[in-house]
């Protein structure tokens, strides 16, 4: 699996999602979220429908899909409420020397 440099840490605003397109991930688009607790990566597409989790509401270690308000745990991708019923796939992401490194798990 390839580790990809997707930018400097400061390019990832706190409590917001950043969209990483398929041309970078080599597969599905990925949403990367930085919070005070850490940095997390989930498949960008909500498991309920065609909507981008990177545009979601980040709070308390979760992201809420803006479309129909299903929430997912940032740490493990677990779906927390309907209408989505499937967990969001997670990916490995870390900050090394101020750079954000993403390892997609496709």
């Amino acid at each position, binding site marked *: 699996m390839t580790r990809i440099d997707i930018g400097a840490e400061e390019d990832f605003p706190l*409590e917001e999602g950043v969209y990483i397109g398929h041309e970078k991930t080599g597969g599905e688009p990925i949403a990367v979220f930085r919070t005070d607790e850490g940095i997390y990566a989930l498949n960008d597409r909500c498991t309920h*429908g065609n909507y981008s989790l990177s*545009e979601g*509401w980040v709070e308390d270690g979760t992201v*809420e899909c*803006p*479309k*129909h*308000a299903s929430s997912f745990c940032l740490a493990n991708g677990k779906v927390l409420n*309907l*209408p989505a*019923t*499937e967990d969001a796939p997670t990916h490995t992401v870390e900050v090394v020397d101020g750079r954000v490194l993403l390892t997609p798990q496709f």
Partner: protein
Amino acid sequence: MSGVIIAGGSVAGFSVAAGLRDAGFSGPITIIDPHHTALDRPPLSTEYLVGDVELALAPTEWFSDHDVTWVQDTAVRLGQGFVETATQRFAADHIVIATGAVPKTLQLDKPVYTLRNIADADALRQALSPGVNVAIAGGGLLAPELATSAKALGANVTVFTPQVPAAEIFGELAETLYATMTEQVEVIERRLTVEENLDRFDLVIAAVGVEPNVAIAQGSKLTIDDGIVVDEAYRTNVEGIYAIGDVCRIRNQPRQDHWDHGRASAARVVHTIMGTEPAAPTPAWVWSDQFGHDAQAIGRVVPQAHERLVRRGDNVIFVLDGEKLIGSAALDEQLIIRAATRIMTRDIAVDPAQLADPDIPIRRLTR
């Protein structure tokens, strides 16, 4: 611990089972429903009609994993402590009625379709072939959604509506949705009645509202008055019997028939059964996908005399009572609704000038 029987397994009924297990309820739970599993409804008029989308509210193994028994049958009778189908009798201390609603229809000299369940959607999908001439009657959310899907399937669409659809839900933004619809399909501004000459139509879809599906409670001691009448904890007048979602009506309030009420009433009845303190009720939330717009609303968006309407650009409105947010509606601006939900449930004071300013990120107003 005593058991729970749930009659009806769409979002309301299913959410009771899931909520009870999340809350640590260890007694037996049975859902009786005519479908093969728990199915969601909102996509039926949109994504399901024009394509393929998963309707199941949970994968099959969820039921065995959570020890919830699914009985594919129709509950036809109940009383204190029991529910019956045509052939089986079930006993439980707690009975939750979540049988939903049935669509009203029109008596016309044409084939009339309605949409409520997956079989209805499959029949409509067959009927809406390219070039078919369809009249859609209704003044709510469903008629424009069906018009959108019918057009996408290649049908020639005419909508009959006596009013701007869903004006009480989306407030003045309903005018924008109406204008979009009139650009996309033929709209005739009157109610479709038997007087109408329907010669040019092949079929009619009636999207003219629903009636609570109270059949199970006929002949029981339950009070029925435009739905099974319940208190604010969704208790009926019979001990141990509850009614939630579209089938119920809270005493002295209008009946609510939206997805979010199914979910919210289920969450409330879980607390009633568990004897735990419920969270503060969340304001009613409604969404509709129509003609390329994602319309959403939370709370009440038509101001009363002492309240103030605040606009943020062309596609977002808020209603305020002083510094208190009463409701919001938005077209294609989902984060506004996510923010408004937090502002309202957390009772955060807001400044109308800040709300109106699109340059101030809405997130900032929730902190």
